[in-house]
């Protein structure tokens, strides 16, 4: 039973205006329609607007504004973005109009999260190979490809099958939301007595949980969109929307999974790749690899750098798990690998945030200039940055330090009764990853726009 019976945390649904709004038909529809309209404009601009990425409204809004803001949303509001995501709304519309509502295929149910991990890695890889971020058309086609996947899954399958099993952002969203400050849970005493189960099955008020969650057994915020359907459907007012200490969910995981832990480690590798390829030493790195491979082909050399970056955190985690087991940590190496993989998440978030902070701060005014240009008001643009490079770096160091503390504390809480000696490999690993991140942020970077 993953319910709440504590009374200490703040329940946002105890505030009448919030509860009334979430129960109303306006939530989350009003946000969904606004986002859908914006999304349509962005896609149009990407596929039909200027091919100059520095002037394209869609590129700026997607990669300079949305992408950096998304991890902040996950920390503050969990997967609320998924509730208002245009792909989710599109899925809802299609299912309502022409959906067959078949059950999710067993293959997707079993391997969905692996597919999500795979898509996320594939998109990051293809960005580097084809330059999707720098190409408005490439970004537009990527969004249209996702639209096609949404349409295909929504025509055949029930609920948000795409969001649950295929969306490349789903794994990232799930992992980050575990560290988020918001959680939706049921009240233990009430849910135990419930006979209707309308949070899952749905009612006249709203459809059942689009993410296939059953509030009575839900012990994680990883798959909760905070769409409010369960709040609308529950006849017993059991649902609570509570503010919690970020990373708290990670401290006592009941059912840790290899795919989530692997993704957490891979995200660290992706943050490394994103940072390294924007550094001036990237040329030297590629040059070194080209000496080993004997070819100057960028794709070949980048692929090798990419694979090394992806596998490095996994190997480090595996090494730490083995060392910890040797030093007296209970459980097998595999169990320790899976459990402590989740401890990467705060550092992942910090690395992701730190990287994107650079873009949003040093390229932030592009949002303003390109928005004005979009409505036909060309202005003589000046400097794009909102703060000096040294200010950005100080902020990045601060964020990485917070991430390091979050990861170390999470590892400490996960260790429970393990001795300090047995925990040393994990503390050392977090410190190493923190130092690598800080070192990478201390080097000069180039811009997206």
């Amino acid at each position, binding site marked *: 039973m993953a319910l709440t019976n504590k009374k200490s945390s703040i329940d946002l649904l105890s505030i009448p205006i919030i509860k009334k709004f979430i129960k109303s038909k306006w939530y989350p529809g009003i946000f969904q329609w606004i986002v859908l309209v914006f999304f349509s404009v962005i896609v149009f601009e990407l596929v039909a607007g200027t091919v100059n990425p520095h002037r394209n409204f869609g590129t700026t809004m997607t990669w300079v504004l949305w992408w950096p803001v998304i991890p902040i949303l996950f920390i503050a509001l969990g997967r609320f973005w998924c509730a208002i995501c245009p792909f989710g709304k599109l899925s809802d519309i299609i299912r309502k109009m022409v959906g067959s509502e078949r059950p999710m295929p067993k293959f997707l149910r079993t391997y969905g999260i692996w597919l999500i991990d795979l898509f996320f890695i594939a998109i990051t890889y293809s960005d580097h190979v084809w330059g999707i971020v720098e190409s408005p058309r490439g970004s537009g086609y990527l969004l*249209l490809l996702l639209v096609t996947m949404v349409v*295909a899954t929504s025509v055949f399958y029930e609920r948000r099958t795409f969001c649950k099993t295929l969306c490349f952002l789903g794994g990232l969203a799930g992992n980050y939301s575990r560290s988020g400050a918001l959680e939706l849970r049921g009240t233990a005493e009430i849910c135990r007595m419930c006979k209707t189960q309308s949070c899952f099955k749905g009612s006249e008020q709203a459809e059942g949980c689009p993410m296939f969650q059953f509030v009575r057994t839900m012990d994680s915020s990883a798959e909760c969109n905070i769409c409010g359907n369960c709040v609308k459907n529950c006849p017993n007012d059991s649902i609570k929307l509570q503010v919690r200490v970020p990373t708290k969910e990670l401290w006592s995981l009941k059912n840790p999974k290899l795919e989530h832990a692997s993704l957490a480690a891979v995200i660290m590798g992706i943050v490394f790749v994103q940072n390294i390829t924007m*550094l001036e030493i990237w*040329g030297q790195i*590629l040059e070194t690899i080209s000496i080993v491979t004997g070819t100057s082909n960028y794709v070949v*050399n980048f692929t090798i750098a990419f694979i090394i970056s992806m596998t490095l955190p996994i190997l480090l985690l595996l090494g730490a798990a083995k060392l910890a087991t040797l030093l007296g940590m209970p459980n097998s190496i595999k169990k320790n690998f899976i459990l402590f993989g989740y401890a990467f998440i705060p550092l992942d978030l910090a690395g992701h945030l730190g990287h994107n902070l650079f873009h949003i701060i040093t390229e932030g005014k592009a949002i303003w200039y390109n928005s004005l240009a979009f409505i036909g008001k060309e202005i003589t643009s000046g400097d794009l*940055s909102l703060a000096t490079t040294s200010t950005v770096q100080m902020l990045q160091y601060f964020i990485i330090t917070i991430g390091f503390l979050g990861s170390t504390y999470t590892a400490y809480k996960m260790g429970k009764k393990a001795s300090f000696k047995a925990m040393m490999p994990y503390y050392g690993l977090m410190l190493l990853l923190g130092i690598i991140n800080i070192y990478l942020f201390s080097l000069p970077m180039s*811009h997206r726009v």
Partner: protein
Amino acid sequence: MKKWKFTLFTILFLFFANYSTALAHEGEEQESDSDNYLKDFSTNEHDHSDTEEEVTDSHDSHEIEGSSHKSEGSSSHDSHETDATSDHGSQNHSETTNDEGDHDDSSSHNEEGAHGTFTGEEKGPNYIVLSSFASVNAGFLLIGIWNKVRKRGNKHGLNK
């Protein structure tokens, strides 16, 4: 059922093949833009005789506070295949740069800290790619409508 699955697989295969080609094509376009840029740069000539509009970024003059940032094209190419830029086109094609002869970017690129110099050509939407997306999506929607109609027919016993 098997027939349906086969049809779906074929549609998806054709679509994804098309998408990969589209992305690769995008990459090539970027590369050629980058080639033009490097060529122009090395010869210090900007005589685009194309009739198509040449785009010059109005952000060219942006100066970033703190000189540690280099622009995407500001790193030294130094006659290597690999350079320290985030622009994929120029990374992929520094061999072309070599063909053009050595040049000292660090002294000539006078835009340290300037974001996004763009001297490519404006292009309209690629209607082939867009219509492929449209037709695949329309195909799926038609399948959905067909399923609905069939279900309704079954309900009313029309198939009997």
